[in-house]
């Protein structure tokens, strides 16, 4: 069984809390707040003003550049504010607030549930539809999908890889999507293959989800999806990282930035993204909702919800029985890559695949000690970096040396911090180094 060649860790996956909960449709929120930046790239520009009436699926934020995404209204109602509000981290973001009135959809959206497999559109038409629908990578990185599908001149895509790995502990949203929306997923894969003009599409699934693998394999045979292959992968974190997945599936290594996965002929999309592409292309439905796992050992109930964007995280947590008493950590995402939320009244955004609640007693950070040069972090780093060194260089602000040691290659997976016996906050400092060095590189490029 395949996996990526170096590094990685085996955190306990904790998927048992929510893996058997089927996807439930969350009731429509009465009010939504939609941040104008939910993706990597330029913020979107609001095209509605206070007092405007909007329909479900109507464009409210126009992409602010090529690497940016459209944003649509997830409910129908009246815009009550276009202003700056704090997001989950308390950071100020421009948001459009909409109060719900009824449930009226844009007329061109096909709301039927039956599968529509036939697709005769040309690649450029598909990409245009994906762009208009504001589809972004739904694994968490939220990179606009139309940018990925627009292969630069002189390069050719050879393989489409669908990320059904979901290596992040706790989260089960992709898993439930694969089980319950398998046909839509596979049709989405076909459409993506058509858009990229590739013959081969591989869906990588870790072998801790044997039923998803069996289910998808059965569907592929039954539906005769040509060129689509389900590849079981040996469970290991961070297999869901783009470069790790390419290495696991194809054995090819992507060169350090600015090289992109396309340089080795691969395009990687998340499983949920494939479903979103299917809906965008076949049903004209923009990205207005997603599957979110609400999970945690201390929660009374765990759920996999299908939620409209902009819904307050509070409502999701209340449906799960409310937050447990005492100090808790609420994470936007899983425990490895997720960001802590300080304000649970913040809205749900495109990149949020789960909300993980962990009680404070379970997550104390150990007392920071000296680095004992055990090199566990070096062994765990899936990018072949030296985390102890990068962390030290960032602490000492030695940016040129940090650049020399390829700090920008870091994928922020957190394996180094997880594995450190001295409880050093390695990633915290590497992240600063990475951001600073990237800034220096950008400034240098502008100068030239």
């Amino acid at each position, binding site marked *: 069984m395949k996996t990526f060649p170096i590094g990685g860790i085996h*955190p*306990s996956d*904790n998927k048992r809390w929510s893996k058997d909960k089927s996807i439930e449709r969350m009731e429509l929120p009465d009010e939504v707040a939609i941040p104008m930046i939910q993706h990597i790239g330029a913020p979107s520009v609001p095209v509605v003003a206070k007092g405007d009436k909007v329909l479900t699926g109507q464009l409210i934020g126009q992409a602010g550049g090529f690497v940016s995404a459209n944003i649509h209204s997830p409910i129908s109602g009246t815009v009550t504010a276009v202003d*700056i509000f*704090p997001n989950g*981290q*308390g*950071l*100020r973001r421009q948001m459009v607030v909409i109060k719900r009135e009824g449930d009226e959809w844009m007329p061109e959206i096909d709301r039927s549930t039956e599968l529509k497999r036939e697709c005769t559109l040309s690649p450029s038409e598909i990409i245009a539809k994906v762009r208009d629908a504001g589809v972004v990578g739904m694994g968490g990185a939220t990179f606009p999908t139309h940018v990925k599908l627009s292969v630069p001149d002189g390069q050719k895509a050879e393989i489409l890889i669908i990320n059904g790995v979901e290596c992040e*502990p706790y989260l089960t949203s992709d898993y439930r999507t694969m089980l319950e929306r398998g046909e839509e997923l596979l049709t989405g894969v076909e459409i993506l293959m058509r858009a990229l003009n590739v013959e081969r599409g591989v869906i990588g699934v870790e072998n801790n989800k044997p039923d998803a693998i069996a289910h998808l394999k059965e569907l592929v045979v039954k539906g005769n999806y040509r060129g689509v292959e389900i590849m079981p992968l040996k469970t290991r974190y961070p297999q869901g990282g783009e470069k790790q997945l390419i290495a696991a599936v194809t054995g090819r290594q992507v060169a350090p930035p600015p090289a992109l996965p396309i340089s080795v002929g691969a395009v990687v999309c998340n499983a949920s993204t494939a479903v979103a592409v299917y809906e965008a292309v076949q049903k004209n439905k923009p990205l207005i909702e997603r599957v979110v796992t609400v999970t945690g050992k201390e929660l009374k109930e765990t759920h996999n919800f299908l939620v409209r964007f902009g819904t307050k995280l509070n409502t999701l947590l209340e449906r799960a029985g409310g*937050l447990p008493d005492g*100090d*808790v*950590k*609420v994470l936007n995402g899983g*425990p*490895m*890559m*997720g*960001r*802590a*939320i*300080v304000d*649970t009244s913040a809205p749900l955004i495109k990149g949020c695949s789960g909300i993980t609640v*962990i009680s*404070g007693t*379970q*997550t*104390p*950070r150990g007392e*920071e000690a000296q680095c004992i040069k055990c090199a566990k972090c070096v062994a765990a780093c899936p990018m072949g970096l030296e985390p102890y060194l990068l962390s030290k260089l960032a602490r000492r602000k030695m940016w040129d040396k940090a650049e020399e040691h390829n700090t920008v290659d870091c994928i922020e997976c*957190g394996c180094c*911090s*997880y594995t450190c016996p001295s409880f050093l*906050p390695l*990633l*915290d*400092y590497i*992240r*600063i180094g990475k*951001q600073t060095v990237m800034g220096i590189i950008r400034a240098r490029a502008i100068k030239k």
Partner: protein
Amino acid sequence: MNELLLTVLTLSVLGVLLAIVLYFVAQKFKVEEDPRIDEVEKMLPGANCGGCGFAGCRAMAEAMVKNDDISALYCPVGGADVMKAAAGFLGKSAPEKSPQVATMRCGGTCAKRPKVNHYDGAKSCAVVNTFYVGESACAFGCLGYGDCVDSCQFGALSLNPETGLVEVDASKCTACGACVKACPKGLIELRKKWPKDRAIYVACRSKSRGAVVMKACKAGCIGCGKCEKVCAFGAITIDSCLAYIDPDKCKLCRKCVNECPTGAIHIVNMDPLPKEPKVAKPASVAATDVATQKPASKPVVEVKAEVKAEAKAEAKAETKSDVVNKE
């Protein structure tokens, strides 16, 4: 004995020979350098802090000698005296610049700015800033982990554990600007240094609207504009719900201090104006403004009380913050 003599002799001859070789090599590869650079470097304080924008005092001295116009160069540590002496030595005109002092513009003490969550990650402002806004609900306030304190090589900054804020010792501050770069929230500004280390500044950087500020912090600027109205010198401007006092225009009259409903305007080494008599005295426009606005300040106090209750309720929903954690 013979061997001893021979050794001494050999080494002496060798020494002389090498000295001659070295002399010619030194002549051949001599680097022509302006001797004035050494002199100027001696005049500079030798702090090598980088406050002038150069890598160190030597680089600064070189720049001063090489450039004909040195008006753009300034050593904040040495100040006007050093610059005058060095410029006089070089026969150039010294740049004019009034002395400056680092000013930390946040008044959100622990008491006035309640914490709404715990943070147990790496103790560094820069790290916290990559995660979220910090332990209080204010997106602009001091994080209190002292990155600026670490950056100061003159020991002018210190973290007051009682208030959770950083304090500046004006007598030690050289205005090198290292702390300005270190603060991820951009709270520190180099401001004009008045005689006797006096200072006046708005101790808030929050560009949020008044209601948002009040919810997060009781010492923040709410952008009400009272100070702008009362200022007779046009030194105060309000931009994005935030007042700013221009030190070049301010005459230290301190009228604005009494006007500020949240006490966001701080004064250093000065007594505040006595409250009642001074307000009634000037028969200018400012006085009428004050008269009309006085009653309006009352409801503000009530709102504060409500806000307190709300803030407490929110504080219950505490969350912890750090990203990577272990099971």
